[in-house]
């Protein structure tokens, strides 16, 4: 069987790159040269000479019963090789990350617009699309449930937020969308006095719209039938092994016969954690006996992956007259859409961290995830914390205003620090410099005021549309701080696997690092090289293609890969190093306590020993494979939320400066500043890149990004209508990266990727409020929210 190629060069490739640099250096990406040359093979670039193209027929209705499906006209279309429906799924017909509730292809009911119903494979994508249009599906259209609180039977806040009357009765919920009802998860946090009182109380209701990951490279992959009756899938994804597990179940094949290799990934941000075309392409390949490529366009991509949960939230904060938080009560509703995806974990994060990085003695949180007929929602960078941060930080500003206190002062007064207890009873056992992050932001210089001297239209809200020359423009400054759990929580067996090989290739000591950890753009391949260089003292480190021939690395999500896969690579290197040192000691005939690897040799600082690895290893290959785990977490108590739920927290803070045209409601973000503690920056340049990118996505949610849904239907599935920040929307940044080591983590590092995505948007929202004096309780903020028209 030939292997897939990306014309004109092969893929996937062993990455070496010209780079150098160990832990703490600005090492360059090993895939960077391929990427700037247009030679990096994304999933959409894969190609085989005899391949077919697969397309998906999707439901136009958010909720309908399927009476019948007639595929005969599609099958009769010249060039069509196969048309498949749920009847053709040989194994489990439903799948899911946490709960298997989502049909591979629709069974008797479709529960969201865009749900896959049938598949076509043909010799040309246009033929396949034409044939898909000839599949006749007879739908009995049903009334969709499109609101999470309605789905759960909690139409009014009072009903759910009377803290003395626990809401466990869900009898008034809407018609069940799934057999067990519409509640995916209800998380409770209870600590302290159940009926606290305070001098000052602020209450707010908040809403966060549905955000899309909007990764730039749409879903794509190529399935190749194998001679052993199995299938090889090359796919852009975030977690090869969880894909493999679900594909195996659907295909009724063992893992040995479902082999996955990571294709080039054009961004992910959570949107590739669930299956998209994976099983579909495999089904078509196994049916036709030919390679099948599936490559979504942008519109299909909007229907082909889960989104960030929209949220509605009600918060009540009580504080003493001098600004000490006494209690927080919160009801948080996440709309999970039609299928569970990772909703239970999103509820876990939203609930356990839903009051922010503050010390509060009395906490009462109810966090719900619901099924509706909206698009399924699941993982997106920030994962349950992005939504709640808008609410709790808005509350902190409201409380500061009520108290007549400076918002930063109020935050610092209540900020978590090392040794503080979270509302779930977890004592923070590593640095938590929340107040310092804010104080450092405060100390940074502010950008020059707008409108000084001659007006440059490009600096104005509305830009060269010439909507204002400065009249009606007000400046605002806002702050926000966030924390986020790193890695998997609540007792999950979170681990990664690394295989490290050391050998001499062409006279040069060469390490090969093999993990299944998905590189999605963040730069993990660079980190893997840096760790191997540092631990093994060699320059040349090859990154093996990511595939399932090595054990699971867990997901590229939850800011976890540098921590967990980095930890696995470090530990595997240490085992290889121990072998090398033992050999060197055998060679010198005695134990030398300070032998280490550096410069491609075993050296001692105390004695004059230098044994080149080329001499020591000869033709031998040293290899170690191991699974590595961070310290275990615990399931939380279902009634109180108490427990050691999270292994590590990441902290970041933002200051946003905005100019708002208060007459037209246009916002220009003038500057974003960020401080973040990363424990140890393994690659400072990449860390800064994560902060910059996360900041932009948070800004996007604050002022422009929303999937608009009406009656369960997506209104804007394109980049014409779903707006993400352009280079003109994203202002210059000031960044300070702090390194307070976490003693529990490899190198003291702290996960980086998500925190800046969480604090950025609330800072922008705070700045707009400061500029306008309006309460602004919904994001994205639209012009009409500012103008009131």
């Amino acid at each position, binding site marked *: 069987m030939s292997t897939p190629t990306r014309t004109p060069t092969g893929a996937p490739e062993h990455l070496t790159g010209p780079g150098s640099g160990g832990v703490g250096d600005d090492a360059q990406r090993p895939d960077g040269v391929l990427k*700037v040359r247009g030679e990096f093979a994304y999933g959409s670039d894969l190609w085989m000479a005899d391949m077919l193209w697969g397309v998906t027929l999707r439901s136009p209705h958010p909720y309908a019963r399927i009476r019948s499906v007639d595929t005969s006209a599609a099958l009769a279309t010249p060039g069509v090789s196969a048309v498949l429906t749920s009847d053709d799924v040989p194994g489990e017909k439903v799948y899911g990350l946490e709960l298997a509730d989502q049909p591979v292809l629709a069974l008797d009911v479709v529960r969201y617009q865009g749900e896959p119903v049938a598949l076509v494979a043909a010799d040309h994508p246009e033929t396949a699309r034409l044939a898909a249009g000839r599949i006749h599906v007879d739908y009995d259209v049903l009334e969709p449930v499109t609101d999470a609180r309605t789905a759960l039977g909690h139409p009014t806040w009072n009903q759910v937020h009377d803290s003395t009357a626990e809401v466990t009765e869900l009898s008034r919920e809407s018609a069940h969308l799934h057999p067990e009802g519409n509640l995916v998860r209800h998380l409770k946090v209870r600590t302290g006095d159940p009926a606290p009182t305070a001098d000052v109380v602020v209450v707010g209701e908040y809403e966060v719209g549905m955000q899309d990951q909007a990764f730039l490279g749409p879903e794509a992959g190529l399935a190749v039938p194998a001679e052993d009756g199995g299938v090889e899938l090359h796919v852009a994804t975030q977690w090869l092994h969880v894909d493999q597990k679900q594909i195996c179940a659907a295909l009724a094949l063992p893992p040995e016969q479902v082999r996955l290799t990571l294709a080039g990934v054009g961004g992910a941000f959570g949107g590739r954690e669930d299956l998209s075309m994976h099983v579909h392409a495999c089904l078509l390949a196994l049916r036709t006996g030919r390679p099948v490529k599936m490559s979504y366009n942008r519109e299909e991509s909007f229907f082909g992956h889960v989104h960030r949960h929209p949220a509605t939230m009600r918060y009540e904060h009580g504080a003493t007259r001098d600004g000490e938080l006494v209690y927080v009560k919160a009801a948080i509703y996440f709309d999970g859409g039609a299928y569970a995806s990772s909703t239970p974990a999103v509820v876990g994060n939203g609930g356990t961290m839903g009051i922010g990085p503050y010390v509060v003695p009395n906490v009462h949180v109810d966090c719900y995830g619901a099924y509706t007929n909206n698009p399924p929602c699941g993982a997106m960078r920030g994962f349950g914390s992005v939504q709640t941060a808008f609410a709790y930080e808005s509350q902190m500003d409201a409380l500061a205003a009520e108290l007549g206190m400076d918002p930063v002062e109020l935050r610092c007064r209540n900020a978590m620090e090392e040794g503080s207890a979270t509302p779930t009873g977890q004592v923070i056992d590593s640095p938590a410099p929340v107040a310092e992050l804010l104080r450092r932001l405060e100390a940074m210089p502010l950008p020059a005021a707008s409108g000084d001297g001659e007006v440059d239209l490009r600096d104005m809200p509305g830009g060269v549309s010439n909507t204002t020359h400065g009249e009606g423009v007000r400046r605002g400054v806002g702050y926000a701080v966030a924390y986020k759990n790193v890695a998997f929580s609540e007792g999950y067996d979170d681990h990664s696997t690394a295989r490290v090989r050391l050998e001499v290739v062409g006279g040069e000591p060469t390490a090969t690092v093999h993990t299944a950890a998905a590189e999605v753009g963040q730069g993990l391949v660079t980190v893997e090289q840096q760790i191997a260089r540092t631990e093994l003292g060699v320059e040349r480190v090859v990154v093996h293609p990511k595939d399932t021939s090595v054990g699971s690395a867990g997901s590229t999500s939850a800011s976890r890969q540098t921590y967990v896969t980095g930890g696995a690579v470090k530990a595997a290197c240490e085992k290889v190093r121990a072998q090398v040192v033992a050999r060197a000691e055998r060679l010198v005939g005695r134990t030398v306590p300070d032998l280490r690897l550096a410069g491609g040799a075993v050296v001692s600082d105390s004695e004059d020993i230098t044994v080149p690895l080329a001499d020591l290893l000869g033709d031998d290959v040293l290899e170690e494979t191991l699974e590595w785990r961070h310290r275990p977490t615990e399931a939380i108590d279902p009634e109180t939320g108490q427990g050691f739920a999270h292994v590590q927290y990441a902290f970041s803070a933002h200051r946003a400066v905005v100019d708002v045209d208060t007459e037209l409601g246009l916002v220009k973000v003038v500057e974003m500043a960020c401080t973040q503690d990363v424990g140890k920056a393994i690659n400072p340049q990449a860390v800064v890149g994560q902060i910059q990118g996360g900041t932009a996505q948070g800004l996007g949610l604050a002022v422009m990004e929303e999937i608009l849904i009406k009656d369960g239907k997506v209104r804007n599935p394109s980049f014409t209508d779903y707006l993400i920040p352009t280079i003109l929307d994203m202002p*210059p940044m000031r960044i300070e990266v702090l390194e307070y080591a976490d003693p529990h983590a490899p190198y003291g590092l702290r996960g980086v990727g998500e925190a800046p995505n969480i604090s950025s948007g609330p800072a922008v929202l705070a700045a707009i409020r400061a500029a306008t004096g309006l309460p602004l309780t919904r994001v994205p903020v639209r012009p009409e929210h500012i103008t009131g028209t």
Partner: protein
Amino acid sequence: MTQINVRVDGASYTDDVEPRTLLVHYLREQLGKVGTVVGCDTSNCGACTVHLDGQAVKSCTVFAVQADGCQVTTIEGVASGEGESATLHPVQRAFHEMHGLQCGFCTPGMIMASIDLLKENPDPSDEEVREGIEGNLCRCTGYQNIVRAVRQAAAEMSGKAADDPQAEPAAVDTAAADHVTAQA
């Protein structure tokens, strides 16, 4: 079908295309030039940007027949020389060295747009870089390092060092405070 003659990255091609075939699909599916990628289909993202007779165009908004008789340069034709020994264009090198990319999907289009910008304005300010490539979306980087990369390339191409602090690499400044390691 309509016959077209085009030079793409220095090689001549004569091909039959449907009149409705987009240039990007011709490049990718008929010529195998998949370095030019499709991000949105609606001309919003600019990932498919190529040069048509030296000018940056979004190849999803150009028909293949419009390229008849033209020179097309894609990201694959920007470096000089072939294979391993090829020399990167200064803009390519700067995007790599200044960490101007993460997933890299926008990178071909960003580089093609930036080369066109620098031809018109060899020494752009940060603001002029932003104005110049505003038609290209990036979802990973927040654009900061893209601005730095274009400034860096401009400096290299004009033979002078980048003078703006924004065009310097992110400073690793341990002197600022015990625990501040990187500032940007």
